[in-house]
């Protein structure tokens, strides 16, 4: 067996990767470390990530009976779950329609969507706030799920999927006398599982991490989502309760990290949405 010679070029590549990984992990490691430390130690010029004084006290506080964090966590979960379900159904239906059904104006709709994707989201905040107000939906979960109930990028992704995917099975089912709606829900949709999984993961993450809409539309503390709750908690203590804030931040990040490791492949491969390929 020959030992592969390590070229200087390879050393450069490894150094780049190690530095980048260290820079990536550094904030996460501090978040985790601080979440177990007492506040006094955090602000006392502490240099090391581990300490004998580590405890679960911060978590006990964050998840305790007087804390709203568990409530906010649950709210975020409900919003993300419902929002993702609606998205998957509506995006898939629209994608299917644009790919497989022929009707007048289909291309106009397609190009219309292409134009709408260019509209910058921040511009819509004020009018949407007023629309929500007029519809009486402020301070409800509907206000955060409804405007994001469809996602143009994933409509395109589903359209692409249905264009590329063979129609054989659906035609067979059609001969067997299955109607359009039954065919869509019982045959095409289950076959589109990979594409649906990809969009679910990203849409769920989008809802979970969303900050602006909850901040703008939610007013009652009990209705807050976890991101808004986290920010409110920190600002109420004028950004000084680092230990408890970091414990709460850890809890916020955890579900997405879990999803990431479970669905790793979707994250690393399914990320080409510019319509090429």
């Amino acid at each position: 067996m020959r030992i592969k010679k390590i070229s200087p070029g390879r050393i450069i590549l490894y150094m780049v990767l190690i530095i980048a990984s260290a820079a990536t992990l550094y904030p996460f490691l501090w978040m985790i470390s601080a979440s177990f430390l007492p506040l006094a130690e955090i602000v006392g010029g502490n240099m090391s990530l581990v300490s004998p004084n580590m405890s679960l006290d911060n978590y006990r506080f964050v998840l305790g009976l007087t804390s709203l964090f568990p409530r906010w966590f649950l709210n975020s979960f409900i919003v993300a779950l419902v929002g993702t379900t609606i998205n998957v159904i509506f995006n898939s239906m629209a994608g299917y329609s644009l790919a497989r059904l022929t009707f007048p104006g289909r291309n106009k709709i397609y190009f219309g969507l292409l134009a709408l994707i260019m509209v910058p989201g921040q511009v819509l905040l004020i009018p949407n706030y007023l629309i929500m107000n007029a519809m009486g939906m402020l301070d409800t979960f509907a206000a955060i799920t409804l405007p994001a109930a469809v996602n143009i990028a994933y409509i395109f992704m589903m359209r692409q999927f249905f264009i590329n995917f063979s129609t054989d099975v659906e035609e067979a089912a059609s001969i067997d006398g299955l109607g359009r709606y039954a065919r869509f829900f019982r045959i095409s949709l289950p076959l589109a599982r990979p594409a649906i999984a990809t969009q679910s993961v990203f849409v769920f993450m989008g809802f979970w991490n969303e900050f602006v809409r909850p901040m703008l539309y939610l007013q009652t503390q009990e209705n807050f989502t976890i991101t808004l709750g986290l920010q409110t908690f920190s600002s109420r203590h004028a950004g000084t309760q680092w230990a408890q804030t970091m414990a709460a931040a850890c809890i916020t990040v955890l579900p997405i990290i879990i999803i990431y490791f479970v669905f790793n492949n979707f994250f690393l491969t399914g990320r080409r949405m510019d319509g090429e390929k």
Partner: protein
Amino acid sequence: MFRLKRRKQEWLQGYLFVAPSIIILGIFICLAVLFVIYLSFHRVNLFQNTYEFVGLENFIRLRLDHTAMRAIRNTLTFSAVVVTAQTMLALILAYVLSSNIRGRKLFRSVLFLPTLTSSAALTLIFMFMFNIQGPVNNMLLDVDILSERINFLQNTRFTLPVIMVMNIWSTVPFYMTLYIASLVDMPSNLYEAASIDGANVVQKFFRITVPYLRPITTFVLLTGIIGTLQMFDQAYIFSDGSGGPANSTLTIALLVYRYAFGPQNAMGYAATLAVILALIILTISLIVNRINKEERVY
């Protein structure tokens, strides 16, 4: 007769299937866009629910508004620095990760982590790290780069740069992944030919990878510009919604929010600023697109 009925039926199905999307996008994008333009020509009093037409007054007022000019300057600086840094870093990391070195899958998984973090958690983590008693100060003191602690969160020279750093940190992996997806399609004989000619890794990067990725770079730049010009979350959380200290972290989107929902209660004027933001984004996008088209010709 039967065929015609079938066709009509398919029309109906087609419309029914796109209807939910059309309705939602119609209300929350199309209607909203028209509404924001309408608002930009009005003075709005939300409490009394009155809309008074004022013509171009809001646009004229903008020219004399020093706070707005500051926000525009901050946003453009932020965008220029962040887009340059994130594109370069993403390109370099994608290149390194798509070379056949050991453990690249692990490195790739690690480097992707920031993308998963919410803006709220991310901003608070960075604020903790950069606070006057925090790890960054400790580290810089320890290695003697600093002689005394810096208040990164309050010193106006450092506030916007700290937000830049956190934004770059959190956006690089996304663009890196886009680049990697394109590099997968790259014909490997390009590198092989270069290797035979004796090119080293750095030469290969500049002579082959960068030119090959030019089309996707345009896409990355465009997405980056559109994203950074709309900077809101991190500046809001960092400054608790104020854009402070001394407007140093004030972005256009944040000022829109402040005017619309703050004590000024100036929704019409805020809408004007939002329209200006959209126009800035549109203009820059068109310029980048134009440059790209000219490059493609030769």
